[in-house]
């Protein structure tokens, strides 16, 4: 965008209005992607005509979709261990991904503490093989928790 700025805005203001207030898109650029939030944990939005909510912290525009490219660059896991050096929670993402591929949920949960993942995105960012680690963990965590809830609900009956 032309000038990155801070705004105090009411809930319900759309991103498009915010962008206009900040001076619009930089000349010669077409945004390929808009994020509600920052580049790491932000959620992509399909259009700018989305109202902000009380938990919206930022609008990020990307002229270049890095994820699209990363999908093409993806190679096999090298077991380089860069993900485990970067993980703020001390997990070993590469082994967690292996456990997911082998559908070994028990190892994922008890031995690798997979549910401790905070989905910060650091492992995906640093992975030289461009593997979508965080995305896998988010999904797996949701699945495991859903299954647990179902089991609990079943037990209560």
């Amino acid at each position: 965008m032309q000038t990155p700025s801070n705004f105090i805005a009411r809930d319900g203001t759309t991103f498009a209005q915010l962008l206009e207030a900040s001076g619009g898109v930089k000349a010669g650029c077409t945004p390929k992607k808009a994020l509600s939030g920052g580049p790491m944990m932000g959620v992509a939005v399909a259009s700018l005509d989305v109202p902000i909510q009380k938990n919206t912290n930022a609008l990020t525009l990307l002229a270049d979709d890095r994820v699209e490219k990363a999908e093409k660059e993806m190679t096999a896991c090298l077991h380089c261990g860069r993900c485990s050096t970067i993980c703020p929670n001390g997990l070993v993402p590469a082994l967690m991904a292996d456990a997911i591929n082998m559908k070994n949920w028990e190892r994922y949960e008890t031995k690798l503490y997979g549910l401790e993942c905070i989905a910060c995105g650091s492992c995906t960012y640093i992975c030289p093989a461009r593997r979508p680690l965080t995305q896998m963990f988010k999904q797996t965590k949701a699945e495991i928790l859903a299954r647990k809830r179902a089991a609990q609900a079943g037990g209560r009956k």
Partner: protein
Amino acid sequence: MNQRLNLSAGPHVRDIWSTSFIMKMVLLALMPATVIGIITFGLHALWVILTSVITAVLTELVFDKLTGKPDSWKDGSAAVTGLMLALTLSAETPLYAPVIGSIFAILVVKCAFGGLGKNFVNPALAARCFLLISFPNAMTVYGIDGVASATPCAELAAGRVVDITSMFLGSANGVIGGSILGLMIGGLALWAFDIIHGQICFSVLGGFTLFMALFGGQGFDPGFLAAHLCGGGVVLGAFFMATDYVTSPMSRLGQTFYGVLIGVLGALFRIKGQSADSFSYSIIVANLFVPLIDTYIVDKPYAFRRRALKIRSGEAKKPLSQRIPKPVIALSVIALLSGLALSGVFSMTKSTIDEQKNAAAAAAYKTVLPEAESFESFSDKVEFLGGEVYGTGYGRVYIKDALVGKDAAGNVVGYAVSVTSAEGYDGNVTLSIGVSTDGVINGISFTELHETPGKGMLCGEPAFMDQFAGKQADQLTLGEDVDGITGVTITSKAVVNAVNAGLDFINTKIRGE
């Protein structure tokens, strides 16, 4: 603003470091050692390197095309494998060796197990060991400008002093990537840029040094330790081979454990095995342990570390049988059983083996003193036999047995001694020497010779052995009285030293009195 924007799950940015970028950095880090190797060993080293790298990349390219896999040859991992293989080869290696080695590394070790990231041992090292086993002759020709001589590591194994400075710079005989200086530059740079894990390479070096100091027999002698660290690919192994991503554990704890395992195994193999290639094998063995390490040794996340401490301090202690993983117990039991079985077989067959040895010795005496009908042992000289190293200047030589040969009428026709030199390239060399009463050597015969086929074993051929017969001298000199075999310096020396010790024993202790 109505056009559709791209949607995807975050994070939406990626590091610039990609697989091929890392591979290029590793290639770059290997350059100092490569360049020094080419300068030291000449143009042939360059051909070996080029052949190896090109074959490796081509093999992967062909495999990718044939199997319709994504183009993994472009990412540079095949080139790294090829270069590493070349660096572990001697500059004198004939060019077919790197070709076969690279094809083996890429096709069998890497692609057959699922390609990049799936190989179970380090491809370059596996290929080196494959070549060592398949072409022992071609693989063990070391030397500069065709002057054959023993490698520093072989000299070290034989207990001699070596020149550490030349080993450090890489001008000592050895492999192309033998320059410790070049390897250290590259390795430390990789470590500084966080490409390799410090906990692996430094625990390898630490474990190796400590074990060598404790059990190497020479204590904390800096010269001895430095020589061992500089020789036999310890640095190449620690910085480039052991840290290979695919075949090293993922968690920090596991990596440290793995590094120490390599260091200790390498030192153990070197002390007990007397082989210059101990480090290649120790890394391969440790590679095989990696899946086990990765399964059982995983760092705890921060939230769980304090609880683990509590368990350790005794607040919630699990029984021992539950704390040790089952496969570990099973493996230990299997190791124990096979150890017992081996020692059982050994003790059962020992008496038979001894009989066979005695028969072989008797036959050897007969060969070197054909005129003798019977042999009498020198029981009064028994204090010279066994135990102590005989004389000075012969190296670690032991007189095993001494006999007087008599003909049918009971007249003395000659003397026979059995001498062992512990300085063979591959352990003991034992031979019998027969000397007639006038001091002329009748001949020599080996009762124990297990050197490299086509190299040290040539000493057991008539071309070498027959040189001794008919010589009448107090001492023989290698190169004058006896022609050594090119490239077999150590064994030739050991044989001549053993013969000299035997001659000295006969002249001073038997005939002299």
